[in-house]
């Protein structure tokens, strides 16, 4: 029997904040971000992150959303009934039956980034599974401008997954490996993922090492999103969210090309920048709940 290894398959995960006792919280809300590749749920107890779940998106949004929130509350003692308001976000946002409101991931990432990194954040680059967004926000985390990439998977997580599979490198190691090259190769020239993959195969046949091909792809991806940031304009402070923000090979090349360092995650931060959208959603859910309580 042969075992088929899928190198793109990143590990699903969850997290509970040991310092938060939800039973003492007056308000519990959640944000669920159903993206094209991953579905994230973040649970907020008052103003603190209580738990999160990070799962792969399945074939339909309601199931993916439920899967993510169930994973988030797993082992916390919480039930869905304890969550007083849920905001749905991400491309599957309009199809989450138990969400009280849908808000775009653009607004949610800005709000989430404001929470994670603080009010200094002005530019957010969200590098997601199938698209990429450059966002400007004010000190409250409210969007003031944004740009989205065109309808193409180049420069997104899906493209990186294709390369991980092609080179048989686990997706989490792509970034590190791409930095282990003696000389930085020229970037892959095709912007289309399918063509870029063909180009990658060609480079391997020419005798390039895996690391070199990964370097060429990470560099192409960095270059592609730099053009997006140049179009919207760069305002400090700058942060990265979304799955690709965890790929050091892309991030370091991006920082080099921009000549600006992204603000690092706060030291006490135990959660993942891929959760920014879900966290933003949970914060909006909290505001909405406060508003509705006020109304009565």
């Amino acid at each position, binding site marked *: 029997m042969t075992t088929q290894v899928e190198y793109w398959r990143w590990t699903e995960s969850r997290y509970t904040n040991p310092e938060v006792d939800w039973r003492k919280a007056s308000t519990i809300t959640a944000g669920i971000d159903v993206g094209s590749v991953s579905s994230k749920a973040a649970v907020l107890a008052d103003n603190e992150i209580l738990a999160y779940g990070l799962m792969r998106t399945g074939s339909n949004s309601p199931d993916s959303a439920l899967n993510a929130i169930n994973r988030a509350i797993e082992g916390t003692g919480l039930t869905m009934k304890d969550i007083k308001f849920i905001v749905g976000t991400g491309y599957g946002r309009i199809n989450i039956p138990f969400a009280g409101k849908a808000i775009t991931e653009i*607004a949610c990432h800005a709000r989430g980034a404001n929470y994670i990194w603080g009010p200094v954040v002005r530019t957010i680059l969200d590098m997601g599974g199938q*698209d990429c967004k450059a966002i400007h926000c004010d000190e409250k985390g*409210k969007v003031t401008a944004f740009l989205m990439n065109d309808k193409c998977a180049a420069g997104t997580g899906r493209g990186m997954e294709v390369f991980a599979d092609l080179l048989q490198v686990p997706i989490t190691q792509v970034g590190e490996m791409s930095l282990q090259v003696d000389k930085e190769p020229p970037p892959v020239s095709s912007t289309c993922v399918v063509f870029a993959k063909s180009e990658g195969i060609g480079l391997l046949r020419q005798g390039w090492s895996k690391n070199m091909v990964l370097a060429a792809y990470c560099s192409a991806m960095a270059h592609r999103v730099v053009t997006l940031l140049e179009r919207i304009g760069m305002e400090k402070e700058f942060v990265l969210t979304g799955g690709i923000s965890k790929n050091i090979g892309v991030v370091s090349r991006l920082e080099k090309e921009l000549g600006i360092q992204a603000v690092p995650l706060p030291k006490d931060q135990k959660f993942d920048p891929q959760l920014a959208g879900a966290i933003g959603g949970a914060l909006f859910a909290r505001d909405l709940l406060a508003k509705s309580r006020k109304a009565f």
Partner: protein
Amino acid sequence: MTLDRAKEIVTNRHDYAREWKKKTGSKVMGYFCTYVPEEIVYAAGVLPVRVIGSHEAQSYTEPHIYAMFCPFSRDVLAQGLRGKYDYLDGIMIGHSCLHLRQAFGAWMTNVPASFSYYMYTPAKIQSPHAKELMLAETIEFKKAVENWLGRPITDGALDKSIEVYNTNRRLLKQIYELRKADPPPLFGSEAIELVLSSQLSDKAEHNKILESVLKELPQRRNGPQGGNIRLMIIGSEDDDTNFLRYVEGLGATIVADEHCTGSRYFWNETIPEKDRLRAIGNRYVNRPPCPTKDWESRRRFVHIMNMAKEYNIQGAILVQQKFCDPHEFDIPPLKALLEKNGIPSLFLEFDITVPIGQFRTRVEAFLEMLQLEVV
């Protein structure tokens, strides 16, 4: 509501033209650009109908024009090649952009009609000679139509045509005037349908539709809600009313527009003078211009900013047909100008069909941005 009649004409445009032909026994002329002096066609007893988009994916145009031609020109040509316009007796174009002219050329070659005419119109309306040039071309065009039909177009017929066309423009402007209210009595998608139906039907009949609409609107109960975000749409040819309906279902109302399927088509009237052809020609030189002709000073921007102020807009959607170079060139300075005046804008690139999922996120995020508070 008579508004439904306008929608019906747009939806069943081919049936409308066929029925008109049967009813009148007269000819129908398809035209490709709103720089065609329609008054002359109408005065000749021929019905001018604009060829607009079908928004159906197609694979007919590739052998004739390259895929980097704008989606509108490809969509137009595809319909011709597929025989959707088999009832047309003639086709014509007023010179504006090359994509559409080449589509016209491919149509002319592959779908022969008994009359096909390429009318040159000034490429620079700011030129001191633009009006003389337009007059000379208008004279030539009138002669060509007369030769085709074998009868003269009389001054009396021209006067009547000018009057019918001016009435249509005046009525549309009166309806647009109502959109300054909050809430306006009609949706932007409906306003565009009123303009499109004007381009597709007999203006004398359309005037009656507009008169009824004007009477009905003040009593209307199911119009847009108050407090919606007031948007303006600006840019290329835009007949995708489904997309506009979609935007207006998200808590926004489109209250103004600058498209050749909207205000640019009817904003100014023909000012009558003894030389009818000069009067008609001047009207086209003076109209809110298409960016293909608007050089070097931008009259277009003046029209846009006046509308933006008068209609009290909160944001603008800049619509560009993919690969439309003239609009592409105008968009960066226009975006900056709007911004300087406190009006944020969203840029969307249109194809024959639009990627609704991606556009939804962009439009929703734009509307969230325009609200004081997201929640």
